[in-house]
């Protein structure tokens, strides 16, 4: 007997099919069977278990291509179980976990361990990135072919840049042959050394060492040049500086195989908003100036920036309670990304609701080559989110995440995931 579920009467938004209409969605055995008007009234479907979605949006589950689950090595800050619970609460049904674990995820055996752990503990789909260089030391490449065979979904040294241009060139060439996406954290360490915030007026006032936007942009430009040389695709993580956005825009215009993501904190906040040395506002790259924030929004609007990703980076309270200068970089984001994006971008008239779903679901799914994700077309995985666009709420600890380091705590937001389904199973319900 087929396992069925109806999601009835919601506004279905499916960017890939350019669909934005009230539909009933029929789920069968974890897949989308059909999405059509009046399905709920069909004779054969009478008595099918039904979720009432009236007044809600029904969208494909969000794909967050940039999260840190801290497992293995820092289970005190986050685990696969708690990180994916946070994802489910935020409407995120697929995450790409970064490789800067302890030890670094750079071998086939570690991937096998993590995938087995995720199969047991995860509430949403978890993909794993493997490191580009052994130990993320930037000295020699990891075994891309064997890592791919072991299930690596992408390659990234995220948390650190690949500083050597020669090595990055080889990485792009080798990854291209295997069809693997290389994700680079752009930061010239010689420009950012010792910095804890953006190099702007607020940093000067507080006497803090800042990193200029150019620390990111010089490496964005380098990666563009290498992508152009090799024909290998590079994805630029967490763009933060206006000049970086412009560099990507020009590269795309020339047909260079480059893509980019932006994080909610960067398009919502600026360095001028940081309350007195609060380390929960510290991340890398840092919050920058108003022009940078405006450029990110423009980049999201015109498609220069393909995807929205959180860079969800949990740190325990102890680590963050050392003052801005000493605290580690990173903020959590899985539980607030949709709400921040709805509040800042859709209510702020930067993106249409359909474009928002595209940036948070369809586009990252396509960048990672995920079939059956990022759409509600028949045959797709039944990963979907019911969104109440009018729900007012204020994020506050405790969170599903083990950590609580977020600048959005206490900040009123509008719009929220009220139910999240993964393969047709409800993993979050308000």
């Amino acid at each position: 007997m087929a396992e069925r579920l109806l999601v009835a009467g919601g506004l279905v938004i499916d960017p890939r099919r350019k669909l934005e209409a009230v539909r009933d969605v029929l789920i069968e055995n974890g897949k989308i069977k059909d999405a059509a008007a009046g399905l709920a009234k069909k004779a054969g479907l009478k008595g099918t278990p039904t979720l009432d979605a009236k007044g809600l949006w029904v969208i494909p589950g969000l794909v967050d291509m940039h999260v840190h689950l801290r497992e293995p090595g820092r289970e005190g800050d986050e685990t696969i179980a708690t990180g994916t619970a946070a994802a489910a609460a935020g409407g995120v049904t697929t995450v790409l976990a970064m490789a800067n674990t302890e030890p670094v995820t750079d071998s086939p055996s570690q991937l096998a361990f993590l995938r087995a752990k995720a199969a047991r503990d995860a509430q949403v789909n978890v993909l794993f990135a493997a490191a580009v260089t052994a130990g993320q030391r930037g000295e020699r490449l990891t075994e891309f072919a064997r890592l791919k065979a072991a299930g690596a979904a992408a390659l990234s040294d995220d948390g650190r840049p690949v500083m050597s241009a020669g090595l990055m060139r080889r990485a792009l060439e080798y990854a291209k042959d295997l069809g693997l996406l290389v994700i680079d954290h752009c930061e010239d360490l010689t420009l950012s050394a010792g910095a804890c915030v953006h190099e702007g007026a607020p940093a000067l006032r507080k006497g803090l060492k800042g990193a200029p936007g150019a620390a990111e942009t010089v490496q964005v430009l380098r990666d563009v040049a290498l992508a152009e040389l090799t024909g290998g695709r590079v994805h630029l993580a967490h763009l933060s500086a206006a000049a970086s956005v412009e560099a990507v825009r020009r590269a795309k215009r020339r047909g260079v195989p480059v893509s980019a993501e932006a994080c909610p904190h960067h398009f919502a906040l600026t360095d001028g908003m940081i309350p007195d040395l609060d380390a929960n506002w510290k991340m890398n790259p840092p919050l920058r100036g108003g022009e940078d924030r405006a450029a990110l929004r423009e980049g999201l609007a015109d498609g220069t920036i393909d995807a929205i990703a959180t860079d969800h980076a949990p740190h325990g309270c102890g680590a963050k309670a050392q003052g801005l200068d000493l605290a580690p970089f990173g903020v959590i984001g899985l539980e607030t990304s949709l709400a921040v994006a709805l509040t800042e971008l859709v209510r702020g008239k930067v993106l249409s609701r359909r474009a928002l779903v595209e940036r948070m679901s369809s586009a990252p799914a396509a960048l990672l080559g995920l079939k059956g994700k990022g759409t509600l077309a028949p045959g797709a995985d039944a990963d979907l989110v019911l969104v109440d666009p009018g729900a007012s709420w204020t994020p506050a600890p405790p969170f599903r995440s083990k950590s609580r380091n977020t600048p959005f705590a206490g900040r009123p937001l509008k719009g929220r995931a009220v139910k999240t389904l993964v393969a047709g199973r409800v993993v979050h319900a308000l």
Partner: protein
Amino acid sequence: MTKDWGRKDLLGLEGLEADEIESLLDAAAAFKDSPPKPLLAGRTAAFLFSEPSTRTRSSFEMAARRLGAEVLSFSAAGSSLAKGETLLDTALNLQAIGVTHFILRYDRSGVLEDLAPRLKACVVNAGDGWHEHPTQALLDVMTLRERWGSLKGKRVVILGDIRHSRVARSNLFALKTLGASVVFCGPTPLVPREFAALGARIEHDVEKALRGANAVNVLRLQLERMEQGFVPSLADYAAAYQLTPERLALLKPDGLVLHPGPINRGVEISSEVADGPRSVILDQVANGVLIRMAVLALCEQERARG
């Protein structure tokens, strides 16, 4: 020895006409069928090698001796080259002593083109840098021609480190000239797409490259390529590109396996394949002596003419 070759040197195969290559192949085949004449009696061959070599050098030495030549024992390390004398001065001195045939292996590409016209003696390239290794390609082609009769319309895959391979370049020139098509296969760092301009098809997916091919010539993967960052590790290279029995099965049913040696078993080729019935690796080595006899003998004709 009927055909007239008209060159005193063999520096490379690029630019040779098909009938020139065939003269060499025919001469080598003739040596196989009849006992050699002392075509180089009273002549002296000298080796100038700035890189180590076992098989090429032994093969040349055997070829020279079979033709009746004296062989001067010499190697660049420990010679005047190490004392700072130029290669040309060394060669001129040896020529004055009575050397008639220089067999050179040099670690830089393109030195021989400068040297050869300044010498009366024959200059035979035994491998220069990444540039050419003409006798290796000739013995490869001879081995294929023995099996096939003609190379026209055949497809040969050259698999491995093409970027640093003089064997690959010489093979490409010979195979194309004789009417075969060539596929270069390996990871992009070792097989840059710019090679397409030389007339090879570039393919980074080994299965696609091998499917339906008539032969595959597997190149050795040198350990230093890993240290230089061209591939992450030998194991990773093997996972993606090693010629295994499964991959071999993609060739035409009678497809052949060549390897210029020395073999890294378990890296670029599995032992099963290297030792298997489709392998012609030892035929290549045997043909090497015949090819080198042919090259030395034909170049001597032109040298003797002055």
